[in-house]
């Protein structure tokens, strides 16, 4: 072996060693970032496990049937009864009111911004919509409490303005930004050729919007509505402050009521850890979680499909 080849071999060995060290470092980093990626799953699973662990034991006390369909929520009487029908119906009513207002208004606004408005109008309107999205829910609750509820009370001649209707109107404001922005994106994704073909057939601008743009973007608009519904179902502070807090099953949106989120928020402070009320509230949380999860999963699937529809 010559001297030269020996030094070459040494250099090669050194390089190999260095490369291995590099590779080792890279591996550690790769593993580390992988673990943090898994953390997202861990948190989601953690939420599920916790809700199951703390919530499911209530069903040994109150069978699921009675829990879901029971109309009496008396957590501190002897013996306590846990029926969540009042909360479930309240959530349904409040969400329905919110959706009934937010869908036509939100889709109309999105159609205007995407199809009719000049760029200048759009550039002015968008930050204002973001502003609406940025107002904290407790502030929306305050507005409902101080300004809207007296108004609703006098217009509908009610004993109290703190009711499902007032809460629903405030919720509609809070779900509007997401409905508008997702619908607008869907409308903008419709290829311009569609519109031009309709114009060529002599359609007016409104007819193009009505018969071409909105039908073509329909699944995206549907996803937007679902996201808005998910928002309304999960919203807590506004309904806690504005919906009235009555514990009976409401018969109309003009009555005071307690949606599921508000039931958790108002009850958890008095619940003893591991006690029956504590378990019942976690079970409500579990149901709430499943409802919003379903809504979001479906909306995501629909959006994915919409995206592929016009992908070229």
């Amino acid at each position, binding site marked *: 072996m010559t001297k030269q080849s020996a030094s070459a071999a040494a250099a090669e060995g050194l390089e190999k060693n260095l490369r291995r060290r590099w590779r080792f470092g890279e591996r550690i980093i790769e593993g580390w970032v992988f673990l943090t990626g898994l953390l997202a799953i861990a948190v989601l699973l953690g939420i599920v496990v916790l809700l199951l662990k703390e919530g499911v034991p209530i069903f040994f006390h109150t069978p699921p049937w009675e829990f879901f369909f029971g109309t009496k929520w008396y957590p501190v009487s002897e013996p306590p009864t846990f029926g969540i029908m009042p909360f479930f119906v309240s959530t349904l009513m409040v969400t329905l009111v919110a959706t009934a207002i937010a869908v036509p208004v939100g889709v109309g606004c999105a159609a205007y911004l995407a199809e009719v408005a000049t760029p200048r109008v759009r550039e002015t309107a968008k930050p204002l919509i973001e502003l609406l999205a940025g107002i*904290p829910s407790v502030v929306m609750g305050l507005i409902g409490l101080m300004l809207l509820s007296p108004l609703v009370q006098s217009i509908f001649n009610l004993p109290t303005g703190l009711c499902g209707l007032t809460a629903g109107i405030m919720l509609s404001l809070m779900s509007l930004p997401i409905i508008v922005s997702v619908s607008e994106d869907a409308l903008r994704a419709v290829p311009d050729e569609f519109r031009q073909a309709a114009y060529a057939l002599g359609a007016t601008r409104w007819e193009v919007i009505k018969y071409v743009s909105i039908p073509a973007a329909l699944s995206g608009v549907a996803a937007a509505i679902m996201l808005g519904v998910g928002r309304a179902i999960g919203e807590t502070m506004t309904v806690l402050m504005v919906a009235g807090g009555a514990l009976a099953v409401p018969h109309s949106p003009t009555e005071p009521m307690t949606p599921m989120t508000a039931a958790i928020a108002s009850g958890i402070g008095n619940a003893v850890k591991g006690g029956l009320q504590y378990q019942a509230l976690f079970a409500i949380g579990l149901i709430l979680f499943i409802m919003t999860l379903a809504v979001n999963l479906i909306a995501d699937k629909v959006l994915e499909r919409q995206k592929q529809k016009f992908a070229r």
Partner: protein
Amino acid sequence: MRTRAIVSRQLSQRVAFGLLVLATIIVVVPALLIILKIVISGAGTIGWEFLTQPPSQAGKAGGIFPAIVGTFYLMLGTFVFSLPIGVMAGIYLAEYAPRNWLTRAINMAIINLAGVPSIVYGLFGLGVFVLALNLGMSLLAATLTLACQALAMTITTSREAILAVPREYREGSLAIGATKWQTVRHLILPQARPGIITGAVLAMSRAAGETAPILVVGAAFLMRGLPQSPSDQFMALAYHLYTVAAHVPGMPKDTIWAVALVLLVVVLSFNVLATIIRLRTRQRRYG
């Protein structure tokens, strides 16, 4: 006959466009009215004393200094805990993740985390941080809860910011012999930094406005002093606003509006800050 049909079509277009404009006004105007009302009703009460003194008489007198400080601690904590994890997870998803079921599951989890109601995060924080980890109703427990909630947002914005860096950067760097991590560390992260920071600032703004989770995890309504350590109880603006508005009888209305104004200024100023960062980098890059 024919002209009449055209006239009626044009008329229906007029009516329809009128309705669309009306819908847009209904979306845009409330935000302005709400902010105007809060500024007008709240500004009169805000003064040096209100901002720097602790509350007295159940919040009816004195100031809201501990609540302001508490809110800033919460925002800072959310930033500190959720940003590094968000960035790391974003790097993984954008640069390292193979296209397989696990990556799809992670992305799915992130989308769903963003949709979980805030009150459910509160229950999660109560069960995990307050009770299981025995942190008690403390500033630390509340911060960790809010950070978990912010995670979905910081991960998503980091991933998008990293993905937006052009491919050529990566190819050039790898071609001159840099390793993958060197490329990420020295080329991609600096490019993606404004986008990542924007997301984190938005997450802080959200954390300042969140009320339901800290209500469950246990913010204090009245404290004379400031929290001395992360295991102390704390006041927060959002929670303070909720209690003075809904639970203190005979509360002077002006004081309630003033608390709302301070909260709104904190939340919206961080919102605006995020927008400025975003616009400035867009200008620098493409202008």
